[in-house]
């Protein structure tokens, strides 16, 4: 009986999710201005302090091991927040790339495709990085350097600039769909 009820509950929940997805899809036929407003702000100063290797070394030397682990955990939780924002923004970039990909201008379409690829890779990489950070929260002593996120971020954001330049030179309509 419990299994049957669980299956019915799961089916109703899935149905609700599908209906919500269809409604959201209608609502998200929006322009890139709205998309850019959806981008989550990041406190760069705070992140700068958070990721400082000097600070980390200083804390490791000065604090007792137990206190250091507690502090490092808090730092990693904050880093998770940052990566979450980057991941969310990557999905915004994916939509922007999709919009450009359907442009009649072949150059813009190619740039859009590249942006989509870069943004999707960034999103994937954020998933892995977040898992590493979570591991670091459990074992604060291990190395959890997210170095290549920066490269991927640079690649993705550089392509946004390229699309922007192409649009400026040859204004072409873009389509955004969820």
């Amino acid at each position, binding site marked *: 009986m419990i299994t049957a009820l669980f299956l*019915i509950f799961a*089916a109703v929940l899935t149905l609700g999710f599908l209906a919500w997805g269809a409604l959201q899809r209608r609502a998200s036929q929006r322009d890139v201005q709205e998309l850019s407003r959806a981008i989550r702000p990041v406190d760069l100063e705070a992140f700068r302090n958070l990721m400082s290797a000097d600070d980390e070394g200083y804390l490791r030397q000065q604090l007792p091991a137990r206190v250091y682990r507690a502090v490092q955990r808090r730092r990693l939780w904050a880093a998770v927040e940052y990566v979450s924002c980057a991941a969310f*923004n990557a999905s915004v970039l994916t939509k922007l790339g999709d919009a450009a990909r359907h442009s009649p201008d072949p150059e813009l379409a190619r740039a859009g495709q590249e942006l*989509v690829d870069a943004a999707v890779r960034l999103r994937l990489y954020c998933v892995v990085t977040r898992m590493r950070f979570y591991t670091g929260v459990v074992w604060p002593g291990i190395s959890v350097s997210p170095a290549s*996120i920066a490269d991927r971020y640079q690649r993705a954001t550089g392509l946004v600039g390229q699309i922007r330049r192409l649009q400026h030179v040859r204004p072409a309509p873009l389509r955004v769909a969820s």
Partner: protein
Amino acid sequence: MYNALYYYLWVAPHAFLAVVVILMLRRRFYKEFPMFLCYAVYQVLGFGVLFVLGTSKAVSPGTFYDAVLLDSGISIALRFGVIHEIFENVFRNYAALSRLGELLFRWASIVLVLTGTVGAGLAYSEGLNHLGATLWVTNLAVSIVQCGLLLLLFLFSRYFGLSWRNYVFGIAFGLGVYACVDLTNSTILSHFGLASVRILNLLTMGTYHCCVLIWIAYLLTPEPAMRSLQAPAATELHNWNHELERLLQQ
């Protein structure tokens, strides 16, 4: 009243499916979705055969039941093909995810088949007769797998912000709605048996009718109109990138 509604819900969705076939051929969607076209064509032809067998007095109930089982088996296989086609179509434009999408489909299918088998076994009530058990419990296991695959696809594409063409979304959405309602009905039938079979049959058929109408609606809906858009200011993105790069290269 019941009979009239039963016959309407048996005939109408297949008549509308013929419209789906015509739309797919006219708009050349069959190039992207050959399996879905096969499914729609098969449903129309299969319905024709079953209708003749079901209304003919020369055909015994046993023969008709065997034909229904065969038809269900082929439909289930084709629906799996359509779901795989949707997976391929969604991931095709995302080079970074295409391999992952294939792996996701394969492993999710294996896990869901196991889950479906166990779930159907647990939901099966001892009081069912053999014929009911065969059809409904199999259907329950299949519904779990199909529902799970479509849910996984929707969740995955939502997480990554992947875009779907209108008709692709429509096909998946219609199939998902049908799979969910079929899962609910199969669970109830597997557990409570014949007591609720008439009303649930109508519900399943009605849902299938809605599902076909959803396909037609999405096939007819044009892609979103082209609008003039401005790409967002890249300054903030560049700042983030610069900051990350500076920090991580320390």
